């Protein structure tokens, strides 16, 4: 079993598995300038989004925290933050200042201050070229597996999820934690019905209570909309597929959690602590919002397990997708990396999950995912907790 990978150590102690120049848009009106640079300069990655202004304070703070977290993610070797003019509470200068604390090179380009969109594009393009020449001198180094933050998520689940691919992910999470690393799970919606497991696995009652609080708040926010999720869970297609109760559905999703103690719980897009073990983040089930929260916490690589197949990937946190549903693999393998459906032919879990472990570590060492080869970026989204004003 490999106990190391080859990555890019950063000044703050984190280790990247890629060495990109991140083009980070502070607000929606800076997105096109970011995208022009990405079209022109190789090794640049765009983070673009529709937020950053006209949000109430706690909601804007969430956007700010998410953007800062992406700048600090160790897969970014350098960051250029693009701003439109003068935002309130989420300025590029403040974002860049917080990212710079990590010790990596950061610059700000302001469209208004720098003479308009085209002059700002020219300035950001030159900066991206300079950053590329500066950071690409760094070579990969052998680092212990304990430096890995293994991101975990799932989507388009079906009855194969709890039997095959989710169990493989849980097995890999256990191996990463045994090596001294961290695994990070989320998706509060799919914790409903798994409360007993959470209480049994949480290292302290305080951690358990914090996670149960996430679940209660999620339930309340659903009820506040005047609807009752419980009446529609499991869904009609879940029942058709053989899932009988919400407990069965949630416990199937939570097979991704492996078997190790839960050592901490954090709010959306907050950094996690240094302690090795399983960490839990409060996110919705929405794939893009959930994986972006995990990326903001510093995860370098993610396994996204799916029953129905998927195209999802995060621009910066390298995302590999797997399924245990052979029909889904056959339909969706253009954007999936691994098929573990042979578990249903009798392949032992350890063997199928061992292939996942190897694929994840190969990707850490630099093997491209299909999304990277396609330069397809669809999975960045920021969770909101307030209205636009």
């Amino acid at each position, binding site marked *: 079993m490999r106990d190391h990978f080859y990555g890019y150590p950063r000044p703050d102690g984190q280790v990247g598995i890629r060495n990109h120049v991140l083009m980070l848009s502070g607000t929606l009106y800076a997105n096109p300038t970011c995208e022009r640079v990405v079209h022109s300069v190789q090794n640049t990655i765009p983070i673009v989004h529709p937020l950053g202004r006209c949000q109430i304070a706690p909601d804007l703070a969430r956007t700010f925290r998410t953007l800062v977290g992406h700048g600090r993610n160790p897969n970014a070797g350098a960051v250029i933050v693009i701003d439109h003019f003068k935002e309130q509470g989420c300025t590029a200068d403040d974002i860049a200042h917080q990212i710079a604390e990590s010790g990596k090179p950061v610059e700000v380009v302001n469209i208004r201050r720098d003479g308009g969109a085209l002059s700002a594009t020219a300035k950001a393009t030159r900066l991206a070229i300079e950053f590329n020449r500066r950071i690409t001198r760094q070579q990969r180094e052998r680092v212990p597996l304990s430096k890995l933050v293994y991101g975990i998520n799932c989507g388009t689940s079906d*009855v*194969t999820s*709890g*039997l095959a691919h989710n*169990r493989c992910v849980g097995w890999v999470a256990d191996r990463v934690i045994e090596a001294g690393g961290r695994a990070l799970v989320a998706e509060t919606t799919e914790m*409903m*019905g798994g409360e*007993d*497991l959470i209480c049994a696995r949480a290292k302290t009652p305080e951690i358990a209570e914090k996670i149960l609080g996430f679940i209660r708040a999620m339930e309340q926010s659903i009820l506040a909309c005047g609807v009752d999720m*419980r009446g529609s869970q499991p869904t009609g297609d879940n*029942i058709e*597929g*053989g899932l*009988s*109760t*919400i*407990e*069965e559905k949630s*416990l*199937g999703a939570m*097979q991704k959690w492996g078997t190790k103690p839960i050592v901490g719980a954090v709010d959306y897009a907050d950094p996690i602590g240094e302690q090795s073990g399983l960490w839990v983040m409060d996110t919705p089930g929405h794939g893009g919002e959930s994986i972006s929260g995990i990326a903001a916490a510093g995860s370098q690589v993610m396994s996204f397990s799916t029953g129905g197949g998927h195209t999802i990937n995060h621009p910066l946190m390298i995302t590999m997708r797997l399924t245990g549903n052979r029909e889904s693999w056959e339909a969706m393998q253009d954007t999936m990396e691994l098929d573990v459906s042979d578990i*249903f032919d*009798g392949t032992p*879990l350890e063997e199928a999950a061992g292939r996942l472990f190897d694929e994840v570590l190969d990707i850490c060492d630099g093997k491209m995912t299909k999304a990277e080869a396609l330069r397809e970026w669809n999975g960045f989204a920021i969770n909101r907790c307030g209205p636009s004003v």
Partner: protein
Amino acid sequence: MSLRALVIHADDNVANLIGPGRQGEEVACRVEGQDREVRVALASDVPSNHKFAFADIKAGDLIVKYGMTIGKASADIPRGVHVHVHNVESTRGRGDLA
């Protein structure tokens, strides 16, 4: 004899059929983590990938999968019988039981 099923945890009292099965067919059940195979004859038709009783289950017994409770039997479920919403009910979020 080609029907197979997975029992995910040694404590489970349900098995997960791989593919569809008809009443009377024999199923080779693999118990995860154990080097043994248990043969169970289906006592009812079971749709593709659905569960059946791996042990005799009495009304009121807990249904165990993944080594954890996924609900409660609402009727007696003899070994080999299809286990689903017609004979299992959730024990969570039940306003009528609160």
